[in-house]
Every structure is written in structure tokens, then in C-alpha cells.
């Protein structure tokens, strides 16, 4: 409430107690978003603690884990491979045009491979899996939550964090680097095909040129950083799904928020991880 509003209220004859009450409720309303934000992080922290405890305590849900590896890995493969291929083609076309202008056409294979493996492959895989898997996990768990199926699991003396969350999060962590390798492979392959269509170049020459002077530090850290993306996607999607309230609308909100938040955190994590990789794996 502004000073002008207070004066107006005084002129209208409002009681000082009423004014204080109005100010207090206005203050509470303005602090509510911060309150909600902090509450979300607090709940996420408690959820993560439950997940970690469930992950390290036997028995382990291997059967559900393998089902999730298939669901998250195999089922995402075509989409990730197609996206990787598209990125390879686009990079090849764009880089060819730019490098030719600056007289560095011979750098084209290295530019394609480095771009795909260092950054484009991992981030595209992270974002595509956020969309496909994040929405799937968020909606599935939210639907189970609103129909009391998660309560039924708990009432059956089965730990839902172990059965539902740990399995999905671990599957995301394990599958993201493998999916990234698939995206990288398709990107490089289609990058070469696009290049060779414009100007014939054998695959052998392309690879020799691309990997000249490269070492494992150039390729392993960017690939394995996607395990962190997997952790983020799995954790946030399971969290959003398992805390859903409010019927069909709640399920929709959980699916949407799973995708939005996991994509956002994947991008933020990428910024941090790129800096980390540059410092520790120069």
C-alpha cells in the first residue's frame, strides 16, 4: 500500500487498526511469491533426501529399473537420433557458409565435430529428454497421485520413493550419456553426409581432419555432464508428479511444470558445467 493510498484511507476515516491490518495483508501478498519459491526449494530438498535414503537402502527395485531404462532410453532413441542428425546437417550447412567466407573451409570437419560433441549434442539431448521423458514422468506420477495409487503403494508397505522415483531418476542418469552418444554419432554422420554432398570428402578424411589434435578431455566431460541433466530431469519430474494436487487440471499442470522446470534447470546447469569443464578439463 503506497503513501498516497494510506492518506486516501485516512481521509476516508479508516481506523488506524484497519490501516495496519491492510498494510500487513498487502505485505503478506507481496511476499507470497518469495514464500512459494522458498517453500518449493525446501520441499525439493526433503524429497531429494527421501530419494537418496531410498536409493541406498535395500531391497532394490531392479525389475522396475529395467522397465524404466527401456522406457526412457530405447523409446527416446529415435527422437534424439533424429534431432542429432538435424543438428549435424544444419551445422554443416551454416559452418560451411561462414568458414568459406573467412577462408577457413579446411576447419569444417573439426567445427562440426567439436560443435556437436562439445555442446549441441548434449544440450539438445537434455532438452529433448526434458520434453519427452519429463512430461511422461510428470503426468504418469501425477495421475497416480490424484487417483491415490501412490497412497495404495505406500499402504502396501512399499516405499514409493524407491519404486517410483529412484528407478526413474537412476534410469535418466544412466540413459542421458548414452542418448547423447547416439545424438553425437548421428550429428557427426549427417554432418559428414551434408558436407560430402556439397564437396566430396571420404569419411576417413573427414574423421582424420576432425579429430586431429583432439584428446579424451575434449569428448568425455561434455558427454558425461549429461548425467547431471538426467539427474535434474528425473528429480524434478518425479517431484512435480508426486506432489500434484487437484485432479485432471493438476495432472496437466504437473506435466507442464515438469517440462518447463527441468528444461530451465538443464540450461542453467549447462552454464555452470561448461565453466566447470573449462576449468578442470582445459
Amino acid at each position, binding site marked *: 500500500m503506497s503513501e498516497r493510498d494510506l492518506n486516501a484511507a485516512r481521509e476516508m476515516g479508516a481506523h488506524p487498526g484497519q490501516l495496519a491490518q491492510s498494510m500487513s495483508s498487502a505485505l503478506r501478498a507481496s511476499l507470497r511469491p518469495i514464500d512459494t519459491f522458498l517453500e518449493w526449494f525446501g520441499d525439493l530438498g526433503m524429497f531429494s533426501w527421501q530419494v537418496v535414503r531410498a536409493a541406498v537402502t535395500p531391497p532394490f527395485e531392479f525389475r522396475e529399473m529395467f522397465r524404466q531404462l527401456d522406457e526412457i532410453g530405447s523409446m527416446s532413441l529415435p527422437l534424439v537420433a533424429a534431432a542429432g542428425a538435424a543438428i549435424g546437417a544444419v551445422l554443416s550447412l551454416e559452418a560451411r557458409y561462414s568458414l568459406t567466407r573467412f577462408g577457413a573451409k579446411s576447419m569444417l570437419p573439426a567445427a562440426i565435430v567439436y560443435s556437436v560433441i562439445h555442446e549441441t549434442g548434449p544440450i539438445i539431448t537434455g532438452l529433448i529428454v526434458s520434453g519427452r521423458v519429463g512430461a511422461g514422468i510428470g503426468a504418469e506420477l501425477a495421475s497416480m497421485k490424484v487417483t491415490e495409487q501412490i497412497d495404495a503403494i505406500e*499402504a*502396501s508397505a512399499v516405499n514409493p520413493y524407491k519404486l517410483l522415483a529412484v528407478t526413474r531418476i537412476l534410469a535418466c542418469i544412466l540413459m542421458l550419456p548414452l542418448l547423447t552418444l547416439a545424438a553425437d554419432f548421428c550429428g557427426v554422420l549427417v554432418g559428414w553426409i551434408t558436407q560430402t554432398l556439397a564437396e566430396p570428402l571420404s569419411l576417413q578424411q573427414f574423421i582424420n581432419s576432425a579429430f586431429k589434435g583432439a584428446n579424451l578431455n575434449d569428448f568425455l566431460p561434455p558427454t558425461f555432464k549429461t548425467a547431471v541433466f538426467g539427474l535434474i530431469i528425473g528429480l524434478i519430474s518425479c517431484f512435480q508428479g508426486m506432489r500434484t494436487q487437484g485432479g485432471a487440471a493438476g495432472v496437466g499442470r504437473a506435466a507442464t511444470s515438469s517440462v518447463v522446470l527441468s528444461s530451465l534447470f538443464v540450461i542453467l546447469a549447462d552454464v555452470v558445467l561448461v565453466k566447470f569443464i573449462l576449468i578442470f578439463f582445459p
Partner: protein
Amino acid sequence: MATICAPMPTPEQAGNDHDAPAISVVDLHKSFADQKVLDGISLSVCRGQTLAVLGRSGTGKSVLLRIVIGLQKPDSGAVRIHGQDIAGLDIDRLGAVRMKMGFSFQHSALYDSLTVEQNVMFSLQHHRKDMSKSMQRDRVRELLAEVGMEGHLEKMPSEISGGMQKRVGLARALALKPDILLLDEPTAGLDPIGSAEIDDLILKLQTEHRMASIVVTHDLHSAKTIAGRLALIDKGSVVVEGTFAELQNSDIEFVRQFLGQS
């Protein structure tokens, strides 16, 4: 509320703490935001007894049941299962207590991606790893036959009626041979014939398994049929507790109103 339960005569129950009620709820309070749902409820149920908790919709009956099985935490008060206070137990230790309990949900809450057979087998797969697959399957068939669902093993929950889902939910609740059974509105949404069938089924199961049961319902006829004792809840407190005859003789206005209008 101190209830002394009669010693059980059967040999398989030897070693149990027979003096403690199977379920004991002491001075339970629960609020959601500003709304007080449970306001000092105390109840106890011994093995072989069935208590029906009655009351108008929204009076906290289901919340009481969810607190008893630990799905919700009370603001204050205690829930003791076979004398063990479940407050403060972590999810794994609570799981050990829950293995002695069966819970049938109001809307059945069957796992919609599993068949009827898989739904009932769920607990066995997780907790009875000593049983072979074929033994588990036999046990599931036995349970489904008990609730009259033996011909629907391969069906998905969406392919069977509400009454059938309730039966499957009951079979699932009985899978681990619990000695406590909690039923949340077992006849809600069913036609009179379906309700009577479920009542008969619950009576039969109670006679055969001698469990301590709490049945939450607003169906007075069903409560009268399946429960030896009834507790009527209003505004979060137990207004009256006793047999149906004792409730009928009550001179409390709310009780008379509830019995007259039900």
C-alpha cells in the same frame, strides 16, 4: 481410552500382546489450514472386532483412517498399532507395521497399468519373495475366488465395474494376511444389491480371518450389518460410541437426527 482386549484363544496368536488393542487412537487432532477436522478423537479396536465410523460427509472419517495407516500425520495425539506408536516412524519402519494392515480405498485405487491379477499380486511380489511365482499366483487366485472375481484375472481395472473394483481392492488388501483391515466407504457409489454383496463379503472375511477392522461409512444400513460397534463423529469428535441398539437409545439430538435421516 484404555481398552483391555480379551485374550485370543487360537494357538497361532500365541505371543501377541493380547491386552493391547490392535488399533488404539488417542486424542487425535488434525487441522487443514484453519479448518479443524479431527478434534480429540479416541477409539480402540481389538482383534476380531469391527468398528464402524459414521458421520456426515466431510467430518474427517477418511482422514482418521489415513492417519491410522500413516498416510497422513496428525497434529497431535497418538496412533498405536498392537501397542506400537507409529508417530515418528520412518517410511521403512512404518512399512513393517503396514504389512500387518490391509487398506481398501474409497475409490479402490487399483494400479491402472496392471491387470486384476497383477494388482493383487503386487504386495506378494514385494514382500513374499520366499514364495515361488506359482505359489504367489495360487494365492492370488485363492483371494480373487474369495471375493468372487476369479474369472477376471487378465482384465484391466478400467474394464471392470465399480463394485468389481471394490472386490479387487479388498482382495489386494488381504494379500499379506493382515490382522488389521481398514475399509474406506466400501459401499459408496454402489447400488443396493452391490452394497449388500460387499457387506456379505466383508462379514464373511471377518468371520474367516478374525481381523480388527475399522469401516468408515455414511451408510447406516451397511454399518449395522458389518460392525459390532459404531462410533458417530460430528465436528471432529466422537459424539457417541456403542452398539446399534445403544445408538438408537441415545437421547443426543444429533444421533437421533442422524439415525432418523439415514
